[in-house]
């Protein structure tokens, strides 16, 4: 069988994503038939009227379902893209976006708002409702920078030092979040727990558009770096001999990565393993060439996230599962399988 070209694979993924978005728009506690969706969308554009008995459905569709599907897709794309990016930067296929401390730092930043936000330490009060994403970004950035500083202490990025520093900083941030949830009064602890599980339940237009507005320019900047990441596979020295500036490349991409991951994490909480599964699937599907892998894992991430969210909405309807539970449930075994395959390849080499 002839293998599909990169473009064909990406077009296929985009078609699947479109189908999945339609499914996500339609399925849930409320079911919207495709014809109804079309009428609602037309109504949104000022075409056609909606019967009064459909007002509740229309409201649910426009104020809950649409922003949720958008947030879900963008978050999935963020996590998939970030996984590919981090694996390229670390030159290691067993790296998760959270590894460099980004997610844990963002979690700590957001938790500090939840717990200290109403206390005498409410230094974030002037930020208002933006406090959670802003502090999540600050936390994610700080953690990433600490890891990165340690890893580049001797002039060049040392991957082993980066990984170990990531483990240490993750542990520190998790301890900080744990401490906050331990001293928190009940309702605050509730917020942390809820948020740590990862869910799209709280999606609204403001949050979804914010995440999208930050994601899209970053996506464009990142997609232009396919060749650079390929060259980085050879190692930093060899990438430099091919005319790239590996130190600057790693820096830039780490900042972009932190930005999109922190903002998405601030909105939906910690969602594990998507950043690991998606790049791996895309590698199996076609190639590890980043010129293909970057767009494919953004599409694949969105696709997977939409599918998982539909499941999360349907299994215990009318209640919902946090998506973080589902991703961990299916992600962890896949992670172990990747690890095993990787070990086997090293052993046979």
């Amino acid at each position, binding site marked *: 069988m002839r293998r599909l070209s990169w473009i064909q694979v990406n077009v296929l993924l985009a078609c699947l994503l479109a189908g999945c978005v339609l499914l996500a728009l339609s399925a849930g506690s409320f079911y919207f038939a495709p014809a109804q969706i079309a009428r609602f969308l037309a109504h949104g554009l000022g075409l056609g009227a909606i019967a009064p008995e459909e007002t509740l459905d229309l409201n649910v569709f426009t104020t809950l379902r649409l922003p949720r599907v958008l947030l879900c897709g963008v978050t999935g794309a963020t996590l998939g893209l970030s996984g590919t990016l981090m694996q390229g930067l670390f*030159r*290691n*296929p067993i790296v998760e976006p959270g590894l460099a401390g980004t997610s844990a730092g963002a979690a700590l930043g957001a938790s500090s708002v939840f717990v200290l936000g109403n206390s005498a330490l409410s230094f974030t009060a002037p930020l208002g409702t933006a406090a959670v994403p802003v502090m999540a970004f600050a936390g994610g950035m700080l953690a990433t920078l600490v890891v990165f500083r340690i890893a580049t202490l*001797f*002039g060049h990025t040392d991957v082993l030092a980066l990984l170990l520093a990531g483990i240490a900083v993750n542990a520190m941030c998790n301890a900080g979040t744990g401490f906050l949830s331990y001293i928190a009064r009940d309702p605050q602890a509730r917020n942390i727990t809820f948020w740590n599980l990862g869910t799209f339940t709280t999606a609204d237009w403001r949050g979804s558009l914010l995440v999208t507005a930050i994601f899209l320019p970053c996506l464009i900047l990142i997609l232009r770096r396919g*060749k650079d990441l*390929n*060259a980085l*596979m*050879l*190692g930093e*020295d*060899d990438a*430099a*001999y*091919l*005319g*790239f*500036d590996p130190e600057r490349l790693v820096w830039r991409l780490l900042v972009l990565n932190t930005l999109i991951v922190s903002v998405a994490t601030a909105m939906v909480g910690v969602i594990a393993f998507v950043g690991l599964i998606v790049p791996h699937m895309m*590698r199996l599907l076609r*190639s*590890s*060439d980043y010129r293909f892998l970057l767009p494919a894992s953004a599409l694949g991430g969105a696709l997977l996230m939409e599918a998982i969210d539909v499941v999360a909405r349907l299994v215990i309807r009318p209640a919902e599962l946090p998506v973080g539970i589902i991703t961990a449930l299916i992600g962890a075994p896949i992670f172990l399988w990747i690890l095993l395959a990787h070990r086997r*390849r090293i052993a046979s*080499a």
Partner: protein
Amino acid sequence: MTIRLEAVRWATGGTTIIETMTLAFAANRVNVILGPNGAGKSTLMKLAAGRLRPTGGRVLLGESDMLTLDGRALARTRAFLSQHVEIDFAISVEEVVLMGRYPHFSRAPGREDRRIVAAALELVGMAERRHRIYPTLSGGEQQRVQLARVLAQLWSDEADPPARILFLDEPIASLDVHHQLHILETVRALAAQGCTVIVTLHDLNLALAYGDRLIFLRDGRLQAIEEPGGVTPALVQRIFDVRATALGDADGRVLRFHL
């Protein structure tokens, strides 16, 4: 085009790796850097190739300071083959070799780039394995693929090709004797077509057979620069702490070593 080191020194963490040295590599010749382990050979290569910033002095390419040159433009005329390139990702041999053309195209490779990749793979004898996944190759095969990559990077079919410089850091360490000689022949042919070659080797006899100019390092110091004919047992003793006996044979001189 010549590469010259002017009073170049390199130190890291308070330890001097390369003592101040001034040295010019011979253009369009095979320059072999020789010396015992820890002599500073790899560091000298990285300084000369513009990867390391000298602690003192400067590296000149022609008349310009290496560090002021645009990285991408430089990459079209200067390539570097590292000792061992490990890739942890499932990427095909062809895609690896295509990376050598990255400095030459911006978005997608052209037909010319594809042709050069095929020719470079042919030259190193890996054309039939171009769809294989790089990490599944043996160490020697991987080394040949990397050689194809740097050859593709400097490839020129013009009658009067531009000045080019190829660095090779222990290119034959993991190869069988057939491929060792094959690669060194390729390198010599490249020098004959107007490419400056700077290579580190451990095999003194191969250095004598293929080198035009032998640069001896020890303890980060430049010890001697000799033509193959000028290498004496006394020099070998001074650099490597071994006694050498010269044996004559049909092709020339062969050294045998004793402790």
